[in-house]
């Protein structure tokens, strides 16, 4: 009697497993972890798809008439903080500088930065510690201008490169505030900006 050949229901998964882990490794390595910000904003949408550079970039978040300042690299943060400390006569210890580099962005007066950095690392990014934003409305105490100026000088001195400025404005923010920030930057002849937006198609 001819025996029916018993076909196995199992498939060899080895190759599939190899491929999927290869892809997984690729995505893990290429993805950049989304870092938390002290003040997340709703971005307006545009059809433009210009990529934002990831290094040598200053990110200014604008919302509720306040500005939050963010730097990209660890070395940049250390150098800019030292330069700012010199200008405003604030001495930072090694631990404070180390803590400062863990912050993605911040919104405090430089004279209150020491108190903020005395807090434990877990509390540094809490929004209630960044209620006032960087002072910029008063031309006598224009720290935003100082931060940007030192970032530009620092980047140029160390890398011979020009710092890029990205503006992250809240969709509902008054244009006046954004305009004021742009004016401050233009005083330093920083004339190019990346306006960070979400993506939409042109059918609106």
């Amino acid at each position, binding site marked *: 009697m001819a025996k029916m050949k018993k076909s196995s229901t199992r498939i060899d998964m080895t190759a599939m497993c190899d491929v999927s882990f290869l892809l*997984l490794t690729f995505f893990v390595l290429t993805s950049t972890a989304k870092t938390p910000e002290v003040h997340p904003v709703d971005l307006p949408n545009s059809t433009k798809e210009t990529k934002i550079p990831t290094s040598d970039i200053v990110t200014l978040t604008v919302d509720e008439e306040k500005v939050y300042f963010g730097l990209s690299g660890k070395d940049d943060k250390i150098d800019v903080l030292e330069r700012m400390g010199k200008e405003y006569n604030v001495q930072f210890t090694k631990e404070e500088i180390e803590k400062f580099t863990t912050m993605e962005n911040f919104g405090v007066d430089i004279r209150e930065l020491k108190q903020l950095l005395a807090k434990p690392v877990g509390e540094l990014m809490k929004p209630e510690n960044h209620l006032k934003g960087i002072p910029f409305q008063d031309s006598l105490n224009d720290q935003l201008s100082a931060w940007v100026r030192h970032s530009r000088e620092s980047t140029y001195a160390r890398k011979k490169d020009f710092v890029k400025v990205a503006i992250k404005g809240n969709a509902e923010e008054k244009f006046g505030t954004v305009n004021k920030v742009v004016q401050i930057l*233009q005083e330093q002849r920083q004339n190019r900006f*990346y306006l960070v937006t979400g993506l939409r198609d042109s059918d609106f």
Partner: protein
Amino acid sequence: MAELNTDGGGGKGGKKVRSKKQNAGVDLTAMVDLAFLLITFFMLTTSLSKPQSMELTMPDKKDVDVTEKQEAKESKTMTILIGKDNSLKYYMGMFDNPYQEVGPTDATYGKEGIRKVILQKMANLKAAGFEGKDGLLVLIKSTDEATYTNMIDILDEMAITGVKLYAINDMTDAEKEIMQ
């Protein structure tokens, strides 16, 4: 993993004790499931967390060379005024003496509003032989009360319609008056 235990629980009777036959195949289904789940997760998070941006270059304020200032024809110059509560007006030529006596006109955002107007003006100029950098020049002026979204929307219209020359200017007092 059922394949790992293949002896079937037998082995009774006076049979010879044989060494267990090892099955080399491991069931990878669960592992593949997990891997694909993670791939999906990383794919989605990477593409979503990369925001796009719009490049904006403003003219240098200092040492503006006066001879560099170029004259623009009235028929080519369009001014867009952005006001509060999503209001929008536009006019051609000069404010006091608008082109063809048509003063500031109300418009709306989007493809049925200002985009149609811009494309119409561009088509008119193209018919007269003005295109690209010789074509329409748009001045964008916004009150402080307008939202940032309004400004982005208009800048976006510039990108969509392909206007080559546009600039963000400050409003004059007379223009502020009508945008109140």
